[in-house]
């Protein structure tokens, strides 16, 4: 395999709380190629955001990265001095943070916000930064007469576009998009998704696209990684994961989404709740909710297994080379 853009190996992050240690991310490994879009899917609290924050080392106490390594463009990010992580954030790896509504400072206009991201990383004159900001905002579809608008004067979709422009400001090679379309109505969602795939094609951008909406993710991703309880339960090419899911959790996620095609059926929910992560369950984190749970599931943590070409799942159902 050639050198990947991003290589995450055995990442584990915990939160030490008064009620015990929450294992938010456990032994997660994955990679992203240049220009590839990886979708990360899972319910709230399954560790998606923690993975993204861990890559940028933005985990604050009581959270802590306990093990693993992150290689980005051949460099081990965890070996960097803490103070110099700033040079990576927003420059080489950019983040589109969760909830664009709140990600913009209410007292900064769109153009100023974008210009400030440029100024944070480049030694350019303020005027130049503003000029590039204007160009960027235009490229994400903000009309030129709106670039001086303040966040409260912009719609949700517009704000999301501004935040995307901020992420792109320094030509990053990887963008971590954390729930970029959550909370937008479907039409705007579609627009933002189109914008992101546009940008991806124009700039050859690699992306990590985090969402709980597996269908939104499948529209834009090359590969999908499904997480549950801080672990990767299934990973494979987007089409395969959506059309031939192997892990019962992925199947449940897909069944919980209403579809437009095919016969009309009931929307299924997955019984039970996401594990809190404090009480360390023996075995598979999903077994208390799993419809096809077996005896082994409560005893042993299933290892990730190949279940098809470039397709892996961590489930005892596929133990023994099925």
């Amino acid at each position: 395999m050639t050198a990947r853009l991003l290589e995450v190996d055995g990442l584990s992050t915990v939160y030490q709380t008064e009620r015990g240690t929450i294992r938010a991310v456990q032994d997660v490994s994955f990679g992203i190629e240049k220009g590839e879009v990886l979708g990360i899917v899972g319910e709230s609290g399954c560790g998606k955001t923690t993975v993204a924050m861990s890559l940028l080392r933005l985990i604050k106490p009581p959270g802590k990265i306990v093990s693993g390594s992150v290689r980005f463009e051949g460099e081990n990010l965890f070996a960097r001095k803490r103070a110099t992580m700033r040079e990576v954030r927003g420059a080489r790896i950019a983040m589109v943070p969760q909830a664009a509504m709140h990600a913009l400072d209410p007292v900064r206009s769109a153009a100023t916000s974008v210009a400030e991201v440029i100024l944070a990383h480049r030694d350019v004159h303020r005027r130049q930064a503003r000029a590039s900001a204007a160009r960027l905002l235009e490229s994400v579809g903000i009309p030129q007469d709106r670039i001086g608008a303040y966040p409260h004067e912009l719609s949700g979709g517009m704000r999301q576009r501004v935040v995307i422009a901020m992420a792109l400001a320094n030509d990053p090679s990887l963008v971590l998009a954390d729930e970029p379309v959550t909370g937008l109505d479907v039409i705007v969602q579609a627009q933002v998704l189109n914008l992101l795939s546009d940008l991806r094609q124009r700039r050859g951008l690699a992306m990590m696209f985090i969402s709980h909406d597996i269908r939104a993710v499948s529209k834009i991703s090359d590969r999908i990684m499904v997480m549950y309880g801080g672990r990767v339960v299934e990973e494979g090419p987007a089409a395969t994961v959506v059309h031939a899911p192997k892990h019962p959790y992925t199947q449940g996620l897909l069944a919980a989404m209403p579809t437009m095609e095919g016969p009309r059926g009931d929307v299924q929910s997955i019984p039970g709740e996401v594990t809190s992560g404090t009480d360390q369950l023996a075995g598979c984190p999903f077994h208390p909710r799993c419809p096809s749970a077996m005896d082994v599931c409560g005893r042993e943590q299933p290892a990730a297994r190949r279940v098809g070409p470039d397709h892996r799942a961590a489930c005892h159902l596929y133990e023994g080379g099925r």
Partner: protein
Amino acid sequence: MVAATATTTSRRRRLPQWPRARSAGERLGRAGAVILVLFVLVAVFAPLLAPYDPKAQTGLPYQAPSADHLLGTNDIGQDILSELIYGTRVSLAIGFLAALLAIVVGTLVGVVSGYFGGLVDTLLMRFVDITLALPFLPLLIVLAVFLGRNIKTTVLVISVVIWARPARILRSQVLSARERGFVQAARAMGGRPRHLLRRHVLPAVSPLIIAQFVRAANIAILLEASLSFLGLGDVTAKSWGTTLYYASARGAFLTRAWLWWVVPTGLAISVVVVAFAFIGYALEERADPRLRARRLPTLAQFGGAPTVATTPVPEEVLDR
């Protein structure tokens, strides 16, 4: 085109026009502001307003009010009204300066403490705790005696006593401000800590800084009056407190002289303090809209008929 019409209408609505007060607090605040502005004008134009030089002997000692001396004269024949007018300068100036100094220090400590947390926070806050726990009047008196009597030390001493409270209050706001989405986002985008603090955190807490400043100025004026009343003020620049000190020391309370020597000055202090309190109340209400619930604004005050958001479908959607 739709956007253009919207801008023109809102621009028309923004024509200079005195907006109506939206709550009882806002009305009080405006009353306070008017009173304060009056006092500031008196302080600024003292030489024009005062009938005499307050330091010159312009009449016989211990005169009751007359046409020549509206508030009578003091023990050495100085005009009390002129003293009151010039005293406004000293009292307000010391109040504002001490409050400014206290707020600058308090903001610095509060913001650094709240933003960086950890050991810095613990050390600074224990220091704040100690300052808050010390009984302030005795501390004030001891410091004033040690440092000597002049305006500079009075300002310094007062700010030493009052900086801790704003520090603590601002710290708690910074704790919440630093977790705000846009601050987190700025951090994720690689903003320098100094940039985050100055450009994002500070503006987010600035309404509170202003409210705390008003409060501090209020307390500073009272403290200055207390100090001067105890004879620890600057004798060369007579403030309201100094006037009261002399009134008390020269026996104004033993005769009817307290009516024109003590009451007007005392009233001036009270009125200014109340004005500050009103302004502070209105500012706090603005910073925390939950306090505004007493009377809900009517639709008319929001600018006429309810405008239903009629967002046109963007053309790019129709294209697809």
